[in-house]
């Protein structure tokens, strides 16, 4: 896995609240056998019309979306289905972070395992970002700090273990496997 320390990008907005994973990747695309190219399905039914043509004013179809790796979204992003296809598609499209005021639990867990950072910010910062789409925002995972080009900044938190894995490009499975002795001891004690 790629190591993630710092990155910066302009933002794009999807201000809807409670965006569910059925919107992020509709169920009919869950039969894809791998993660490759799944970004094409991202927000498919919001992004394309009935004939499959891009809906021009949807944010992911705007030219600036191509260069953005930070999505600013409404409260409770990623609720609903546990499908990991949601973070796979966001990553495949090019996102590295989602900024919101809160995230659904399963989505957050899934995102952190795929190099996608869910960043919870206070409401005032959220409003600033939503009101200034396209701002350059720097995300510093090492110092847990987010800063806009206007000089506004805030700290954020990421589960320390997930952060360590992201910063060092470590897969979490390796850590569980390294606890083999403890697992065997637990099994024997049952």
């Amino acid at each position, binding site marked *: 896995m790629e190591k993630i320390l710092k990155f910066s990008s302009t933002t794009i907005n999807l201000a809807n609240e409670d965006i569910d994973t059925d919107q992020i990747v509709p*169920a009919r695309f*869950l039969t894809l*056998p791998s*993660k490759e190219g799944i970004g094409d399905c991202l927000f498919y*039914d919001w992004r394309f019309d009935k004939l499959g043509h891009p809906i021009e004013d949807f944010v992911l179809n705007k030219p600036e979306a191509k260069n953005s790796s930070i999505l600013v979204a409404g409260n409770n992003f990623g*609720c609903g289905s546990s499908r*990991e296809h949601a973070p796979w598609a966001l990553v495949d499209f090019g996102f590295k972070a989602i900024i919101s005021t809160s995230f659904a639990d*399963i989505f957050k867990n899934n995102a952190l395992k795929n190099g996608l950072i869910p960043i919870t910010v206070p409401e005032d910062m959220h409003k600033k970002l939503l009101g200034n789409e396209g701002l350059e925002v720097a995300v510093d995972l090492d110092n847990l700090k987010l800063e806009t080009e206007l000089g506004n900044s805030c700290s954020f938190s990421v589960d320390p*273990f997930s952060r360590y894995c992201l910063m060092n490009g470590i897969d979490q499975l390796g850590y569980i496997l390294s606890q083999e002795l403890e697992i065997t001891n637990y099994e024997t004690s049952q």
Partner: protein
Amino acid sequence: MNSRPKTLFEKVWEQHVVVPETLDTPAIIYIDLHLIHEVTTPQAFTLLRENNLKVRDPKKVLATMDHSTPTVPITSLKDLDIVSEKGPANQIRDMIKNCRDFGIELYGFESDRRGIVHVIGPELGATQPGRTMVCGDSHTSTHGAFGALAFGIGTTEVAHVLATQCLLQRKPKTLSVNLTGNLNSGVCAKDIILKIVGDIGVDGGTGHVIEYRGNTVSSLSLEQRMTICNMSIEGGARAGMFAPDQSTFDYLENRPMSPKGDDWVKAVNEWSNLVTDDGAIFDKEVDIDIDALQPMITFGTNPGMVMSIDAEVPHHNGSQSFKQALNYMKVESGKPLLEKPIDVVFIGSCTNSRLSDLQDAADILKDRKVDSNVRTMIVPGSQAIKAEAESLGLDQIFKKAGAEWRESGCSMCLGMNGDTVGEGKLAVSTSNRNFEGRQGKGSRTILASPKTAAASAISGVVQDPRIYGDK
């Protein structure tokens, strides 16, 4: 002895800690039973193959096919290419191969144990009090009805559990939902959980495990508890739980995978301790009055956008999402949904496809006809429920009424297998999610109980089940 009073959740959690949580690392918890299905496992098996890993304990994996599985009869795999699209058909073939390659028993097309994963677990007695259970499916919360700690995980975590039988987890907080009073006639467990999700909101339970408590609980059947736990995730909660009681033990006794003989006696003794101690503290508490509860329906595009069946669609709260939801649903603030014409009724899903749900629907559909403009599809939760319903003649009631009676599966709940509501069409559905396009592209969904769904099928409009003299 440790004297601090503990919640049911804490007791189950503590019994499964392999490596305790620290500031730097989450706990490693042991998973007693891993449920798998065809949709959220292919990439997990790929990960095992790439890393040359085995499944640690195939006997602790319960595998079935439900999500992309057709609900028309299949006699051989060759039929798949006739009834299914290429994607779902390949996914089913991959599931069969993956289970064979990794030594996991699969309840496939030839098995009379096949069904929706959250229906067959309890039915087989695999779901037991005090167990930790996970599945790559958010509705795993269903199994908490038995006092299991059960929750949905992503595909990477599916691989973790396959390889190690363990999961990395931070300990969640606890939320007590106190239910008081009794269900009125025509009101179902589905109405209870819709009311709860409406009250706490779709993120009200985020970071929490719910325990359902209060004087209503002892009168609820295990089927009703499953419906309630199932939709705990719609309130954002990781899991929902009921403390096991005599009803739980009665349900589980003599199930194929339940303990037998002396082991049964020992198990019931242990399970009886799985209650929240007096004085245990929850991080949050919510009270719900069941006496006052009416049949509930959703009006928007998430399960928290809910109202009593005779209410008017609430006024705009100013948010962009609310406006978009009403536009999508083609409903107007200040107007009721009662008597609104519908196109489809779906009775099924891991929320409401058990025998008691089918009986609720049959009580209303008996000797009546569904409206000729309404496609009514009834999908049992498992092949065993299908057989049981047929032995009671429920299938005849449904067919005479003009409803379709299918093989088991997730079906129109998420429309992966070809069963969809249709573009722009309006459904009254007993499933769990009314998200935009959830039941197929362009579908519009009103969530409701099996009674409300059956009444609506007959009327051809959103209908209050109580007008059909519901018992």
